[in-house]
């Protein structure tokens, strides 16, 4: 990026909102994945007009523009692989409107998930897809990734809540997609096209979200199992019970061992544990649902089932599941938090495969996941300075995703493709589908300016 372009960007947004300093280029070179590349410069737009003018400039001078939220991507979505300009959306961080009657929240993309939650809570509402990085991640990033979370089984993911978007296209045109209505069959669903597009089709500058009333009560239970197959059967049979748990999480044996070795939590040394939560408006309602789930646990040979009788007890049951990232992050220097999803009926088969692959490649691969929607996170804890171990990690990861595709699963449930999953794109998607994706990219970004090099397109 030459000086003339830099001066023009400064002319658009002011020199206080632009930097090509080394400290910024290095700090924008990485997200939470293992990928890394420095941008040439960074800009902090303050409004849609800024974004539009910068993209017009990029279109004229052919430089890559990578929109970025909090940079918590675990798949390299926010890494400027071909340099260019980082468009840090974090200073566009206003909650524009919360309209309970219309059941909508309108936000700028830099609003942090937790800040929206804090604004909605007193009104008795919430935005259900709650990523683990909720204290940090931005809603723009959630839209770009189609982020999920712990409540996916019952409440879905980000795409289920994005009603409308304001998007700046690669040539600087500003469009509005979708509708503020709860129903709309009007035209192609451009909103859904941009959700999960990883900043490759446009830059989102305003988001209209559907919000939900928040059920105030929950019931929580934890079950332990002696083998994965029983736990897997329990997960798939819960669906037969007609109950949709608000959360259903799994913690596998490697994770349990890591937690036992590294924390003071007094976990039993079991093969696998499941934590289930049901929500509702009365205790009778939440308990009724939970009793059905507990019955399924018992029928599938759960060795223990513990029900929480108070909020404190519920928090204690959740502690093991919620402590895992901190435990895994301390196991070794590097952490590859993998993300895959399989049909619910294949959960136990996938978990057995993960365990077998970890053993075959002699890797620490503790696994947790949102089994209520078939979404698993095998987390490989390795030493990135050890070349042979890195080779084993790569081989194991490939084998993992071969198995996912074989089981009819998807190579990412909620983290996106970014750079990390490019090698597996054509394992999941047939050639014709990828060609359609490419043609969409070419239509909306003919000069390949927006987050180039991502998704293998």
């Amino acid at each position, binding site marked *: 990026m030459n000086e003339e372009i830099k001066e023009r960007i400064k002319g658009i947004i002011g020199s206080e909102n632009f*930097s090509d*300093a*080394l*400290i*910024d280029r*290095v*700090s*924008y*070179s*990485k*997200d*939470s994945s293992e990928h890394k590349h420095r941008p040439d410069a960074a800009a*902090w737009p303050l409004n849609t007009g800024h974004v539009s003018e910068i993209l017009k400039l990029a279109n004229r001078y052919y430089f890559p523009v990578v929109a970025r939220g*909090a*940079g*918590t991507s675990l798949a390299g979505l926010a890494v400027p692989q071909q340099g260019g300009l980082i468009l*840090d959306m*974090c*200073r566009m*961080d206003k909650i524009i409107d919360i309209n309970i009657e219309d059941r909508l929240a309108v936000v700028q993309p*830099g609003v*942090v998930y*937790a800040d929206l939650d804090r604004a909605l809570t007193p009104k008795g509402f919430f935005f259900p897809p709650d990523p683990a*990085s909720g*204290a*940090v991640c931005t809603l723009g990033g959630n839209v770009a990734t189609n982020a999920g979370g712990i409540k996916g089984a019952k409440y879905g993911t980000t795409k289920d809540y994005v009603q409308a978007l304001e998007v700046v296209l690669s040539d600087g045109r500003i469009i509005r997609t979708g509708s503020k209505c709860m129903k709309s069959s009007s035209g192609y669903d451009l909103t859904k096209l941009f959700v999960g597009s990883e900043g490759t089709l446009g830059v989102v500058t305003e988001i209209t979200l559907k919000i939900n009333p928040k059920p105030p009560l929950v019931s929580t239970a934890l079950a332990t199992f002696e083998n994965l197959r029983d736990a897997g059967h329990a997960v798939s049979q819960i669906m037969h019970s007609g109950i949709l748990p608000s959360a259903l999480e799994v913690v596998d044996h490697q994770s349990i061992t890591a937690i036992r070795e590294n924390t003071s939590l007094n976990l039993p040394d079991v093969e696998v544990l499941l934590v289930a939560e049901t929500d509702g408006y009365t205790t009778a309602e939440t308990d009724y649902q939970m009793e059905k789930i507990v019955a399924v646990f018992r029928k599938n040979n759960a060795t223990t089932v513990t029900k929480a009788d108070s909020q404190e007890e519920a928090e204690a049951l959740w502690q093991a599941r919620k402590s895992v*990232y*901190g435990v895994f*992050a*301390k196991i070794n*220097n*590097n*952490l590859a938090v993998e993300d895959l999803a399989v049909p619910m009926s294949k959960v136990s088969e996938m978990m057995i495969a993960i365990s077998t692959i970890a053993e075959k490649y002699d890797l620490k691969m503790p696994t947790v996941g949102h089994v209520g929607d078939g979404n698993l996170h095998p987390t490989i804890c390795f030493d*990135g*300075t050890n070349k042979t171990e890195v080779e084993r990690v790569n081989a194991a990861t490939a084998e993992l995703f071969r198995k996912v595709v074989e089981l009819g699963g998807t190579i990412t449930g909620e983290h996106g493709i970014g750079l990390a999953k490019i090698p597996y794109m054509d394992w999941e998607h047939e050639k014709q589908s990828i060609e359609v994706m490419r043609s969409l990219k070419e239509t909306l970004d003919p000069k390949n300016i927006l987050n180039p090099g991502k998704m293998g397109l």
Partner: protein
Amino acid sequence: MENKYNFANKYRDQLLRCSSCGSCRAVCPVFGISKRPAYNARGKMLILKEVMEGTVELNDELIETLFQCTTCANCAANCPSGINPPEIIKLARKDMVNIGSCHPAFKGMNEVLKKSTNIYAEDEAEDFGREKKTNAEYVYFVGCVGMYREDEATAAALELLDRLEVDYTLIDEVCCSGVLEDVGYSLNDDLASTNVKRIRDTGAKKVITGCPYCARTFNNKTQYEELNKHGIQVLHISQFLKKFDLGVKTKKRVTYHDPCDLGRHCGIYEEPRETIRKIASNFVEMRHHHANSLCCGAGGGVRGAFAKNSITMARKRLEEAEEIGAEVVLTECNSCVHNLGNAKFRAQKFRIYTTTEFLNQLMDSAG
């Protein structure tokens, strides 16, 4: 292989272990006001990792970020990987000073403490109208901010000790110089030995400090080990006060700001609250409190070197006091009182005090 920088040799494992998850973004006060990722711990760790690997030079270009950290340790408290960024940054600052790269304000602070007894280079120490005793049960150690900038708060603290009939003396104290460790230099041995000698000369077996940073320095730095060896215990005044029945009450809506030096750095959260709850029935916590408390923005030399940002951080903290409708904001650190006081808008009706000053006022009113 030995790295040419001490921070890289000592903290290589921690730097490699930073997974760049970005959890520190949510709590870093400098990032909170700037939204510039180069300022938060993840940004700093990425930069230092590259310095360690030799792809970035340690030079003046890095002053802007590496010297702009309040060392509040909120990042360390929230780091899933268990790394301690402020300690890494402090050692990197020393490496920078060793190669002649330093923020001029920090260099100036070191120069001042070579010649002066205090960080402000003031000539006349306040004596608060009290004679120095040669024999007392306690030494009350004021600290630079309490001596030269928040002297009213100190006068009130001393009046309170008088009311409680505490047998204490002041000494001709000099700066504990702990702050030099934060800004790229080392604690000043001469100043430390002067303090140790003057404390010991009083025969006191306990030191009460008005400043949490001084208490931290006395308790943790080798230059002050002699105090411990001679059975001299060092307490912050909040620890000392909790045993008293104060006999005064307020109906005002009171909140408490945890100073980083007392809270995250010393683990002292409950003692100040015990005292405040005794006197204030309408005590309310701010949104961030205890280990999650927001920094006032003054620490780590940031107030001196990046004054504007320091005040903006304090304003952000005060927004939380406003949010809960506090009438009184109490804290246990003169430096916090000073920075928060400077940041307060006239339209903000709450008052900011040290707990001791507020207690003394209540006692004044009670007659």
